[in-house]
């Protein structure tokens, strides 16, 4: 029953994430210089790229957890997989919304069918489907197996979607505005970006830990409920 007590390290990590988060926010607003062409709206870029990064981390963790679950049949990996999917879902959504905020003044449109935007959307759709799939299954063992299989298939298919759109664009070049990697950044901007990336990675670990603990606890409740129902 030691799991009921919140680990000390997790509390410390909470604090660290909060401090880092405010520091990153301060850097974005006060340390990073104003972008010459786009102005203030460019500041959304730092958190945009960080949320997209966390979404990617979650996506990869879910795929790895899916493989680990099928190999070991250990409930722990199912909990890790669900946690990663949920975090990825939320952060990709934030990345898409913040990207739209930036795209409106930069590209003069809220949305284009650019390869990255489309791929992020497909990941969202795959994960919504994953949630629907899990909701439709009562047996926890089967739910875990199907969930793992689906995350693995998504893990294979989404990069292929990315590649197939990429190849299309190399045949028919379309003008989509400046790519992020081609933006000339000052050292302050680069520092802010890397600090934001680091902050959000810590935040990801913190959230993942919380969500895994939540998964364990709800598992325990389910078991207790079954025990008392008998």
């Amino acid at each position, binding site marked *: 029953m030691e799991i009921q007590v919140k680990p000390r390290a997790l509390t410390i990590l909470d604090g660290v994430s909060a401090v880092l988060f405010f520091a990153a926010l301060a850097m974005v607003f006060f340390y990073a210089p104003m972008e010459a062409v786009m102005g203030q709206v460019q500041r959304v870029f730092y958190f945009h790229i960080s949320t997209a990064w966390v979404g990617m981390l979650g996506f990869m963790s879910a795929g790895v957890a899916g493989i680990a679950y*099928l190999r070991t049949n250990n409930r722990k990996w199912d909990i890790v997989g669900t946690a990663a999917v949920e975090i990825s879902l939320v952060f990709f959504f934030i990345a898409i919304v913040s990207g739209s905020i930036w795209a409106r003044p930069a590209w003069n449109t809220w949305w284009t069918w650019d390869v990255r935007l489309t791929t992020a959307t*497909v990941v969202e*759709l*795959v994960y*919504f*489907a994953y949630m*629907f*799939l899990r*909701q*439709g*299954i*009562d047996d926890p063992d*089967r739910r875990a*197996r*199907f969930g*793992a*299989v*689906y995350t*693995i*298939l*998504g893990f*294979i*298919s989404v990069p*292929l*979607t990315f*590649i*197939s*759109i990429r*190849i*299309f664009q190399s*045949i028919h070049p379309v003008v989509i505005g400046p790519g992020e990697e081609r933006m000339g950044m000052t050292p302050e901007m680069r520092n802010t970006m890397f600090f934001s990336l680091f902050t959000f990675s810590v935040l990801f670990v913190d959230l993942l830990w919380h969500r895994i603990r939540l998964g364990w606890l709800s598992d325990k409740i389910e078991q207790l409920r079954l025990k008392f129902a008998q």
Partner: protein
Amino acid sequence: MKTASSLSRVQAETPRFTLLRATAAIVWKDLAAELRSRELLSSMLVFALLVILIFNFALELDARTRSTVTAGVLWVTFAFAGTLGLNRSMAVEKDRGCLDGLLLAPVDRSAIYFGKAIGNLMFMLLVEIIVLPLYSVLYNTNLFNPGLLLVIFLGSVGYIAVGTLLATMAVQTRTRDVLLPILLFPLVLPVLISAVRASTGFLGGAPLEEILPALNLLIVYDIIFIAAAFMVFDYIVEE
């Protein structure tokens, strides 16, 4: 003792042969059932025609629009009719307890997957074989292009490889047939993207080197998805 040793020798000698025979038996079972009921093919066909009809009015398919959207219309039609067929084919197994019977059979589980997949592929190809000339006649477009036929075959293989797997999953859930398109479409997107692209290329008479990347991708998807489905199928029929 004698029978036991001869039995084990038989099993040791012919594992590949039994896999092939079991697969063929399942395909045959599906075909025979379909020949008698004609439920699946007729509903897929009528549905496909309805989709084309709706597209006709939704897109106002006049001669100029047609040349650019034909590939898209065809693939959307195939994808929608395909989900209908996949759902039906697995629901029949689940409803009458046939899936449990198949699982009890002393054959490799992958024979069940390949058997169902080949059966589904045959139905989908049959629908496509009927839809293509109909579309040609209705819209006065020549679709008899060997390249296009190849793309349609490769695309259908990829679609069915994932579709059969996901349909097997979907029928075992509470939401069942509603779930299949939601599960399937985001995963099968790469197949559809490159199939539409290659089809448009062939229909528009583009040079082969422009179509080749999409065609290559299609082959790569087929191989990857068949291999992946083969590896994970055991986990989704386990009880």
